[in-house]
């Protein structure tokens, strides 16, 4: 039964405002009329009311509405923190370390490079974290190549154009764009990138992507160890178990959108 103390028209206005939490933005009068089953006249009046009070703003060109700055009045506390890739990845890095006994690294794309932002180091003889803040171009190292391979074809071509000539770090660095494109296809097919000593020669590495629901990369996870211990045979032996951890991680990472604005110059 409806509460006689409620102003129904105002309640509907507030409900439209609430719907902006999940509604596709920006939206217009016709969109609101269609989705909420109300007349265009009513939809217009609701949007006009919310815009007059600054809770929505109307784009004068498209006539569509988006959330406005007065929204900032509505919460003084209780905002949850953004998705934190380090916090999210931490248990999986530890799990992979326990599985392999080797060092594990977490890397993200920064500009045209990858940057290692976290890791778990193995004990004793091991491969170590790179110098803090070291940027590695996206064509060199397995972490870079696995991140590059999960960008769009257009972004990959933009990267090649912007970064050419591709810098050589070791004799095995891929500097030929066509060879890089073939490597991208291989990484996409197998779902991981192997180390070729193409950036750092001392150690064996394998990198896996952490993706969102659309396949964009959040980060790369690299497992690396000394070649006499983390042998190619050992990597093959561990591969199914490592992939199982990565698959579980990706099931959860898909709930969060990866940074989408990767623009190469």
């Amino acid at each position: 039964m409806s509460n006689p103390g409620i102003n129904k028209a105002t309640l509907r206005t507030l409900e439209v405002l609430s719907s902006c939490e999940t509604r596709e933005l920006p939206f217009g009068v016709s969109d609101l009329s269609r989705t909420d089953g109300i007349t265009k006249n009513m939809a217009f009046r609701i949007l006009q009311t919310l815009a007059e009070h600054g809770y929505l703003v109307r784009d004068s060109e498209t006539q569509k509405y988006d959330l406005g700055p007065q929204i900032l009045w509505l919460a003084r506390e209780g905002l949850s923190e953004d998705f934190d890739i380090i916090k999210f990845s931490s248990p999986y890095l530890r799990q992979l370390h326990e599985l392999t006994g080797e060092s594990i690294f977490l890397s993200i794309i920064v500009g045209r490079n990858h940057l290692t932002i976290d890791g778990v180091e193995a004990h004793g003889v091991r491969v170590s974290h790179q110098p803090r803040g070291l940027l590695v171009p996206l064509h060199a190292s397995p972490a870079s190549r696995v991140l590059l391979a999960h960008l769009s074809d257009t972004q990959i071509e933009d990267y090649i154009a912007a970064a050419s000539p591709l810098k050589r770090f070791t004799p095995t660095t891929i500097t030929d764009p066509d060879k890089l494109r073939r490597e991208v296809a291989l990484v996409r097919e197998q779902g991981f990138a192997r180390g070729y000593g193409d950036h750092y020669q001392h150690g064996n590495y394998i990198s896996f992507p952490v993706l969102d629901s659309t396949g964009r990369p959040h980060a790369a996870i690299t497992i690396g160890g000394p070649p006499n211990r983390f042998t190619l045979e050992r990597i093959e032996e561990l591969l199914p178990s490592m992939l199982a951890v990565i698959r579980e991680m990706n099931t959860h990472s898909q709930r969060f959108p990866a940074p989408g604005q990767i623009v190469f110059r």
Partner: protein
Amino acid sequence: MISASFIFDILRMLATAETPLGPSEISRRLKMPLSTIYRGITTLEAAGYAERQPGSNLFTIGRMGAPLVQRYLSRFALRDVAAPFLRQLTTVTGDTTALFVRIGWYYVRIAHIHGTNEIIQTRPLGEVRDLDDGVAGRIMLANLPQDLRDRYFSEFKPEMPSVERKRLVQQLDQIQADEIATEPSPTHPDRLSPAFAIASPTGLLFGTVCIEGGALSSIATAEEIEPLRASIAELSALCSATSDKFRNSYDHLSPSSILLPSASAR
């Protein structure tokens, strides 16, 4: 026209009140009939924007607002493009790195990456401050066109004593010349927290980044500043390449027409 105006007045009052408010108190403050306030509060409560304190007739702002603020902050495309650079600066310095945009005469914290150097109280996402309150805002103020900067003082801060204003203007000129603003670190008084503008070569300001720790020594040498500046320069270049996505959405509004809940002491 839907008679919603008084509803938003009640909502704003609940949002800024230090303690829960009852209908009588709201009626007194808004100079509106108690019956109207009751109807307004009941409607706000039904929509989730007002919350009754258990066992009382007192109300606070409801829980419906937080997810809307979250969605609002996510609408800033600058957050997406800046996120890896904030992470880079936090990785390099170990300090919390925060991203701000200007809205009218205020700046708003729209993203941050927590550092590991110190356990300090980080300001909340969505916090609003006056442009002259803190380095992240001052570097925005320093980068405003001169006429807007003048209007900030005449329209928004007319009560600021002339001596204080003169000192601030000198500081803004220095910030503009240095392309960096600094203030003493909250954790290490002998070190500085820097802020940088994210801007196009033509002076279009997209936002600012503040590294909230002691990233710089008190003399702030070029060797300390340049790696940080290089990261901001790359971010600025990316924003400039598609500047329409990142420009201030409220430039068509007069800054004085925007009133926001500032945390700055007034």
